């Protein structure tokens, strides 16, 4: 019934990290904010994530990483997105990300980094203001 297409978000857990609380909270929260949310579940290879992003035609990929492997895994996901012609998909990173790594992630093409404890509303507002 919406006039506007609803924003589609893929919440993804790359690699082997099993901390799922943040991904669950963000997935539920963005759904309540009116987004279409697809959650990959744990243990996704960067290639799987990029494929899912293309197949599901999402506007945003939210990567949740708390294992310290955020630099390697994010770089790979972005590379795979570009290979599949989905360079325009907004990539967000959430988790425990040391401050000094935030500029490195942004340089790779990450639009924003949301550390653990960020209100879901703030993420929703950010996405809306950048996509609409």
């Amino acid at each position: 019934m919406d006039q506007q297409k609803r924003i589609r978000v893929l919440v993804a857990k790359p690699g082997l990290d099993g901390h799922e609380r943040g991904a669950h909270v963000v997935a539920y929260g963005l759904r309540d904010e009116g987004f279409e949310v697809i959650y990959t579940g744990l243990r996704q290879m960067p290639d799987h994530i990029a494929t899912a992003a293309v197949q599901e035609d999402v506007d945003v990929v939210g990567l949740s990483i708390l294992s310290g492997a955020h630099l390697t895994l994010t770089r790979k996901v972005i590379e795979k997105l570009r290979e599949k012609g989905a360079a325009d998909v907004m990539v967000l990173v959430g988790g425990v990300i040391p401050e000094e790594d935030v500029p490195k992630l942004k340089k790779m093409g990450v639009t924003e980094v949301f550390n653990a404890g960020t209100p879901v509303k703030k993420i929703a507002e950010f996405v809306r203001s950048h996509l609409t």
Partner: protein
Amino acid sequence: MTNKLEAIAGAKDEWSDKVLSPKLSKLEIAESPTRFYSPLDLPDFDFMESVGFPGQYPFTAGNDPVPTWQARARQMAVAGYRYEWGASGSGKYGGFATPEDYRDYLLRMHDIGRKGGPNIAFDLPTQCGYDSDSPWAEGEVGRVGVALDTLRDFEVIYEAYTGLLDIDKVPSNFTINAPAAIIIAMYVALAEKRGIPLEKLRGTPQNDILKEFVSRGAYILPPEPSMRLFRDTLVFCTEHLPNFNITSIGGYHMREAGATREQDLAFSMANGAAYLQSGVDAQLPVDSFAHRFTFNAFGGSMEIYKEVAFQRAARRMWATMLKDRFGAKNPRSMMIRQIATAHVGCTSTTLQRPLNNLIRAVVGGLAGAMSGGVPLAFPPYDEPLGLGHSLEAQQLAHDATRILIYEAKVCEVVDPWSGSYFMESLTNEIEEAARQELEKIDKMGGAVAAIGNGYMHQAIAKSAYERQKRLESKQEFQVGVNCFDGPHELELSTSRTVPDVYDSELLNTAEERQKAALERVKRERPEKEVARTLLELRRQARDGGANLLPCILDCVKCYATLQEICDVLREVFGEAKPATG
């Protein structure tokens, strides 16, 4: 007695009318935000049945009439002995980069007087059954723990433990679940090489696979074959490693993942019951192994009254279950043995104003002391800042514990809340709520069924979101996060003046170095033996009655890799699938 209660009830009505109500009217609120407990809240209290003396069934008042560490506290302070509070003989939980890097770190710790046994954190590839050269391992090698591919790596780590610190003298702790059987086999292989009798080995593997499916995510095989491996470790340890613990059951991880207090308690009890049943099904008397079950500091939140009650309720529930359901006779089988009791949990810490976490941890330490444990000020305040607690934060945490013990003297009374109208009521309430949840799981067919159908996993995810909603709608508060923050925030940076314990340069080069080491091992090992033992493992795995531990031991002794062993098991049993709900 009844007359006395009636008199109190009368007095309460009068108090409510004449004292409480006028105050509420004056404050213009309908309901009081506080409660007062009286004998009316605990009319049928039976001390011997509900509490009992510390060290006796049902252990509500604690496992121990006099905790050993408390008895030695004075001597330790006089001698300046730097006890690793809450680690029961093993040292600080840690691990990073390659086995060589971790070994050198352990030696540095020994040099500053921290000589506990290894308390090993393994990296994610190891926890999930992949070698360092697997595509799955990219970026993860040596990050959240030390990388481990073969027995060689285990041997390198233990170069830090010889002589006075040999493995017949210090215990080891392994935070490992899905591949626990392989790590236990490596420990046995190391002991055999060093000529140390297996009965001298002490230690604890986490070996709590069920909670991995609902909270921690480091699983390999589906739940049922995972329980086969658990049974094999239980039987092997019972027969060969009498001083080695079988499991360390962790409600703590479920709480961290978002479980409510009642879910944490019920799910832990359900998982524990499934583990106990697997020993019983293997025809072992429950008293031959239940005393080697431990718990991993379960619980964890800032609500300290409730956390104290939670610990008391948990001890009573476990003891009752062991006695009534499993027919245990030995009191030791009925105890929840754990390194710490109540604490705040890592999810209570905040990235905002990180020093506040020290204050939070002290609150947890106080709860620990009031619930039959060490006043452990855990975690160190820099927990949310990234991997590895700085030495400075660790010292602050240790000192907080010491101050609580030596200056505040919070441990001079065992179960200080015993008999309190309030605490006994709260203990009953929490136990009752958990019991109802446990019954629900039992009706589904127990823990394995409630994991297989996704019930536990979804319940925890929902609870996590509910809590977040309460925070965002300001029904609950976190200081510096959703209140008392804003425009007047000071610009602070936390100075960590002591160098980082984990060298970032080593972390960044760990993957390449570990892959090279693995390649060397593969070149030099007896390849035919590796193939033969892996084939035998495949054969034995298909026989549900066989114990796989001896077979896995043969594999590790000829330096088969962790992933090679896991791949055989994956081939036979299939892989666990992640839940997306």
